[in-house]
């Protein structure tokens, strides 16, 4: 199964290279999405017959959650993408290159999630940068070049610093010469704390760059705003998760080595800075895709805070990750609809979405309600659990600050979304393909149903036990 999930995109790229048929591009992306979903479900149920890649790639309780989230989001995005392409002339021109990049991008994220070795994980995280750079630069405008440059340059520096962290972890290991997570976990107690702490700082700041944690998030608003909407959805809902998983794995080493107080402190600081930055910027923002990008920074901050809280907080973080991925993917895809209808990304120029395209308008509002954690959004459970854990651990000021910053972000987002949806627009009624609504409806329905009935609570709680 793992071999299939990792080798199929390479074969698909080869087929696309040899057979130059336009229809084949969409078919290959959708086929990969279906195979990805089937394989992920099988892997989640531990059905993995005679696989050769067990050494470097394997599933465990933690990465199964990330894998299935990636699969579901990619599945939804692949169908949306098929409809979106028809409305984007620049996409139709270079469709083959676009398809190569999408396939390799998903491959690299899958590799990063499944890798059992810190070094290989790092390589795949770097590969995500290289594969997605082309997708951000795709429109070849001045702005997209600027966004792609910032993305590649900032992320490459971040990832290079993460490699410094890996080298320093090598120094901390002493006689152990392995970067396999299992070896690192079982020997963590004997690691030299000085080098381990130094290594954690480098890895957190390096991979935190990729995850979009403030203050090293600068590439994120530009890249999310400039890339085609299906890619923005993948960047926000899956790429950031892949980076978060690597941070979680390294945090576990710190926890087992007894250096978790120090790691938690840095995670809290970065988490709250992310919330603060989002609260400051989201209020004044003029571009709705950038607004969603800042919302991603905020949610990454929440994930970091949940991880730092540990135990129930970590479980809340995992629930939040699932909810955020589904809702944010739907939000970004709906922003693609708005872009198609209004041909602008400026918040002020978009009014009366409800009267112009009722379905898009409601999807826009429901996505907002979902991301704002209004019950029954699954994010309500996660944010409630995080606040509850904070108060239980007697972090009262922190809990109050958390609620205050979330409220500010909510107000900023809500103001823009309501202005865009409710006012009467001069735009004529527009009809888009059904495939530009159905993926969002499914993702939002899942995240609202999970808010009412969450059947994996026990599984997630047991996974979060070690943190």
């Amino acid at each position, binding site marked *: 199964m793992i071999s299939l999930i990792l080798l199929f995109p390479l074969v698909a790229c080869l087929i696309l290279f040899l057979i130059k048929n336009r229809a084949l591009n969409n078919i290959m992306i959708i086929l990969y999405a279906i195979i990805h979903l089937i394989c992920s479900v099988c892997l989640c149920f531990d059905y993995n017959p005679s696989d050769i890649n067990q050494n470097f790639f394997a599933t465990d309780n933690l990465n199964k959650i990330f894998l299935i989230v990636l699969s579901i989001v990619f599945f939804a995005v692949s169908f949306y993408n098929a409809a979106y392409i028809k409305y984007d002339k620049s996409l139709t021109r270079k469709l083959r290159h676009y398809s190569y990049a999408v396939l390799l991008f998903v491959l690299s994220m899958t590799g990063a999630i499944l890798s059992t070795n810190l070094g290989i994980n790092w390589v795949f995280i770097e590969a995500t940068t*290289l594969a997605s750079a082309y997708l951000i630069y795709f429109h070849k405008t001045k702005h997209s070049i600027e966004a792609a440059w910032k993305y590649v340059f900032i992320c490459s520096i971040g990832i290079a610093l993460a490699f410094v962290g890996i080298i320093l972890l090598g120094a901390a290991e002493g006689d152990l010469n392995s970067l396999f997570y299992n070896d690192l976990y079982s020997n963590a107690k004997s690691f030299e704390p000085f080098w381990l702490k130094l290594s954690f700082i480098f890895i957190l700041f390096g991979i935190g760059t990729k995850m979009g944690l403030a203050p090293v998030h600068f590439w994120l608003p530009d890249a999310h705003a400039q890339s085609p909407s299906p890619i923005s959805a993948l960047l926000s809902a899956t790429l950031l998760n892949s980076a978060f998983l690597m941070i979680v794995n390294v945090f576990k080493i710190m926890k087992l080595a007894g250096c978790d107080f120090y790691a938690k402190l840095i995670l809290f600081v970065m988490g709250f800075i992310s919330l603060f930055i989002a609260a400051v910027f989201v209020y004044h923002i003029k571009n709705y895709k950038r607004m969603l990008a800042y919302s991603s920074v905020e949610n990454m901050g929440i994930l970091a805070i949940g991880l730092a809280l540990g135990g129930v907080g970590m479980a809340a973080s995992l629930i939040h990750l699932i909810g955020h991925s589904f809702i944010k993917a739907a939000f970004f895809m709906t922003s693609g609809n708005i872009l198609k209808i209004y041909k602008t990304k400026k918040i002020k120029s978009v009014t009366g979405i409800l009267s112009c395209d009722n379905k898009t308008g409601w999807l826009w509002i429901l996505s907002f309600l979902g991301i704002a954690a209004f019950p029954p959004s699954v994010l309500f459970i996660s944010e409630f659990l995080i606040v509850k854990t904070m108060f239980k651990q007697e972090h009262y000021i922190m809990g109050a600050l958390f609620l205050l910053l979330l409220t500010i972000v909510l107000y900023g987002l809500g103001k823009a979304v309501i202005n865009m949806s409710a006012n009467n627009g001069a735009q004529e009624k527009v009809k888009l393909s059904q495939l530009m609504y159905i993926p969002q409806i499914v993702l939002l329905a899942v995240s609202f149903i999970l808010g009412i009935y969450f059947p994996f609570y026990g599984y997630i709680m047991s996974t979060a036990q070690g943190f």
Partner: protein
Amino acid sequence: MENIFIILLGLSMLYIASTSRLKAHINMLSAQGWLLFFICITGLAHENRLNIQLFENLKENSAHLLGIIFIIIETLGIKSFVIPLFLNKVLNKTQAHRDSDANIPHFYALVISSVILFSGFMVANVQIPAFKLISPLYFGVSISIIITSLWLITIKHTVLSNVISFITMENGIFLLSLAIAKEMPVIVNLGVLLDIFIAVFILGMLVREINTEFNDLGVSQLSDLKDYE
């Protein structure tokens, strides 16, 4: 012997910090590739890990030999030949010869980078138990190269200078990986090599695109995307 090459590598950063000619920067990158090669070879010879017996028992020493071949390809092949050649091509295409508008005058850049290098040597002389796991001079100089490169990225004004500083930072990281008294797994090294190569390739292509689109390589051109507009 390798200490001389390490010090020369540290000094090469002073030259990069104090000159504005991009051609000189690229030549210095090539020189750094050679210096890293000599550091690896003399280091291996010093530890008696590079001798004629290696070739007598090829089967047993295959992993070690693979590591040596990798080092030669990375330092001599990629760092001192392929990357400078590629950057020279980009330089000729873009006709950008100088980075003359740096935020800090050359003299001060030289002083500040000298202070960073000196601090690196100071770190190399710190005697704490944790330092027994690494070679102090490698560690001190590599940290000073990484910090100087990051600082140069912030003060230089053309995107090509930023790419060059990124590669010098990668050279610093390569030296740091040599500071640990054990070998990193080969597969990781291969991944690193591939990533540096592709990252530089993509950055180089973007430099050309920036030049075509903006008719200039100034970083100030790349500040149009703002939150409040």
